[in-house]
C-alpha cells in the first residue's frame, strides 16, 4: 500500500498537488489498490508524516514539493526498507539509496508555452503572474521568457509576483488585478503560475477577452477558448508510475523533461481552435530541438540568473 504526502498547498490546489492526487486516483482505479494520503498543515508534520507512514509499513511513500527533500534526507536512513519518492526535491542518491528524486524540467515546458504566448500575442507584450518570488517560480518565469524571446526577440515580458505571505497562493482577487494591470500595459497573453491566485488570472483573462496559460495540470477546460494552453507538469504520471512500481521502485534521480514527456503543453478540444497548425508545428520543432540538445533552455535554479528576464 503506497502513501502520498501533499505539500502545504493542499490536495486540491487545482495544479501541482491535485495532479499528484489524480495520478494516485488513476492508479487506485486501475489496480483496485488503495493508498493513504495526507495534506500537511505545518512544517513539522513533514517528518512526522514520513515516519508515521513508514512505520505503518506503507511503501513507497511519495511526496510532492521541494520542501520535502530535507525531511526525507533526515528520515530515510531510519527506514531502509521503505522507498521514498520526492517530487521536485533533490536528495543525494549516494547517501540515501532508498530515495527516488523526481525532478521536472519546468523551464522546458515553460519555454514551449512561452513560444505559444509569443505567437498568439498581437501586441508583442505578454505577461507572467507568479505566486511568490521563489526560485521555482523564477524557473517557470525564466523558461517562459526564453520561449517568448525565441519567437519574438523584441517581445516585452511583464513578470509580476503576487505577494510574500502564504496568502499569495490563494488570492485570486490580487491575481485578477495583476492580470488587469498587465492587460493595461498591453499584455494579451498571461501565464499564471500561482496556485489559487491563478484562478483569478485565468478568470480575468477570460472576462477581458485575452489569452491565459494554465499551469501544472491541464487547466484548458476552465475557460475554453481563453486558456491558450497549460504548461503540463506530469506529476500525475510520476505518481502513477511510482505507485505502480510499488516496493520495487527503482531509486536514484529522475529528471523528467520534454524527452521523457514529463513536461509539455496541453492540447485538447478546449484549445484546439486557438492553436493553429503552424503554431503547433513551430512548437513541436522547438520541442524536438530541445530534446536533441540543439536548443538549451537555461534553468534558472541552476544558474541563479536568467538570460531573458531580470528579477
Amino acid at each position, binding site marked *: 500500500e503506497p502513501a502520498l504526502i501533499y505539500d502545504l498547498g*493542499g*490536495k*486540491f*490546489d*487545482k495544479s501541482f498537488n*491535485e495532479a499528484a492526487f489524480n495520478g494516485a486516483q488513476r492508479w487506485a482505479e486501475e489496480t483496485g489498490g488503495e493508498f493513504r494520503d495526507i495534506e500537511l498543515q505545518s512544517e513539522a508534520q513533514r517528518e512526522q508524516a514520513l515516519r508515521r507512514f513508514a512505520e505503518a509499513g506503507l511503501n513507497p511513500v511519495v511526496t510532492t514539493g521541494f520542501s520535502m527533500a530535507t525531511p526525507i534526507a533526515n528520515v530515510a536512513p531510519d527506514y531502509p526498507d521503505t522507498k521514498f519518492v520526492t517530487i521536485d526535491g533533490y536528495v543525494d542518491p549516494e547517501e540515501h539509496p532508498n530515495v527516488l528524486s523526481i525532478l521536472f524540467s519546468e523551464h522546458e515546458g515553460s519555454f514551449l508555452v512561452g513560444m505559444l504566448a509569443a505567437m498568439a500575442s498581437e501586441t508583442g507584450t505578454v505577461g507572467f503572474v507568479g505566486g511568490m*518570488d521563489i526560485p521555482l517560480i523564477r524557473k517557470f518565469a525564466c523558461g517562459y521568457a526564453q520561449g517568448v524571446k525565441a519567437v519574438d526577440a523584441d517581445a516585452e515580458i511583464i*513578470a*509580476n*509576483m503576487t*505577494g*510574500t*505571505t502564504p*496568502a499569495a497562493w*490563494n*488570492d*485570486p*482577487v*490580487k491575481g*485578477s*488585478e*495583476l492580470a*488587469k*494591470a498587465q492587460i*493595461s*500595459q498591453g499584455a494579451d497573453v498571461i501565464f499564471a503560475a500561482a496556485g*489559487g491566485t491563478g*484562478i*483569478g488570472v485565468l*478568470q480575468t483573462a477570460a472576462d477581458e477577452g485575452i489569452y491565459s496559460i494554465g499551469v501544472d495540470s491541464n487547466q484548458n477546460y*476552465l*475557460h475554453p477558448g481563453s486558456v491558450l494552453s497549460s504548461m503540463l507538469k506530469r506529476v500525475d504520471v510520476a505518481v502513477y508510475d511510482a505507485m505502480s512500481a510499488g516496493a520495487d521502485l527503482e531509486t536514484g534521480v529522475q529528471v523528467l523533461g520534454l524527452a521523457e514527456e514529463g513536461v509539455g503543453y496541453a492540447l485538447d478540444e478546449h484549445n484546439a481552435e486557438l492553436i493553429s497548425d503552424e503554431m503547433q508545428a513551430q512548437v513541436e520543432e522547438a520541442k524536438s530541438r530541445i530534446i536533441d540538445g540543439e536548443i538549451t533552455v537555461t534553468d534558472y535554479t541552476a544558474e541563479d540568473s536568467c538570460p531573458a528576464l*531580470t*528579477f
Partner: protein
Amino acid sequence: MDFLTALQVLDSTVRLSTPLLLACLAGLFSERSGIFDIGLEGKMLAAAFFSAAVAFTSGSVWMGLLAGTAASIALSAIHGFASITFRGNQLISGVAINFLAAGTTVVVAQSWFAQGGRTPSLPPEGRFQTITLPFAEALRDVPIAGPIYHELISGHSILVYVGLLAVPLTWWVLFRTRFGLRLRAVGEAPEAVDTAGISVVGLRYAAVAIAGVLCGIAGAYLATGLQAGFVKDMTAGRGFIALAALIFSKWRPWHALGACLLFGFLQAIALRYQNIDLGAFTVPVQVMDAAPYILTVVILAGFVGRAIPPRAGGEPYVKER
C-alpha cells in the same frame, strides 16, 4: 504616469477598495455601538463562500448574495451572543469567528462540491456583471472627463456602487436618524441609553447585524463580483486591512472612504509598478510588495495621530457587577 495609466490605476483602486470599504463600514457600525469586531475577515470569508456556493447551485447571483449575507449575519449573531448577551471578551470572540469561518468554509465546500474547498466556477448568471452607466459609451471620446467617466466611474459591478453609496448612507444614518443617534450614544455611554429607556442590547445587536450585512456584501463582491467562485482563504487578510482602515479613519464614514481608497490605491500602485528599474538596479519586488504597508505606517505616524475609539468600545455593558 500618463493619464490613461493613472485612470487604470485608479480603476484598480476602486475595485481593491470596495471590499475594504464595505468591511470597514461594517466595523464602523459595530464599533460605534461599542462592540469591537476583529472578525470582519471571517465574516467576509463565510459570505464569499456561501454567496458563491448558492449562486452556483441556484444559478442566481442574487440568491447568492442573500445566502452570503445570511452566513455573515449568522457569524455576527454568534459574536453578539458572546459579547453582548454573555458579556464575553470581544477580541476572543472575533478571533474565534475568524477561525470558524476559515475552517467551516473549506469543510463545507469539500463535502458539498468535493473540489477541495473550492466552489465550481460560476456561470455568468451566477456573477455580478459589470454595468455600464448611461452615456458611458457616448461620452467616451470627450477629452479628460469622457475617459474618467467611462473607465473609472462606469463599468463596475453593482456592488461597487452599493459600497460607494453605503458611505453617504452610513453618514446619514449615523448623524441624521434616530437610530444613528442612539447607535452613537450606545457606543459612548450605554448607561445614558439605558436610562433613556432604550435597550442597549437591542441596539448593539442591530449594529452587529448591520455589520453582518455589510461584510456579507463585501464577501459576495469578492467571490461573485470580482471572481467567479470561492477559493479557500480568498479574503487574504482584507478584514484586517479594513480594521486598520477603520482605526485610521477614526470611526468616521467619509474618512473611512478615504482610508480605504488610500489602501486600495497603495496596493494598486504596488501591483502596477512591481519592477521599477532604476538603471543599474531593479527595485526588488518585495520592496514594492511591502510598500503599501510601509507607507501606511508612515502616513499614520506622520499625519493621523491618536485615534480615540468610542468610549464604551470593547467593554461589555454591565449594570450589576
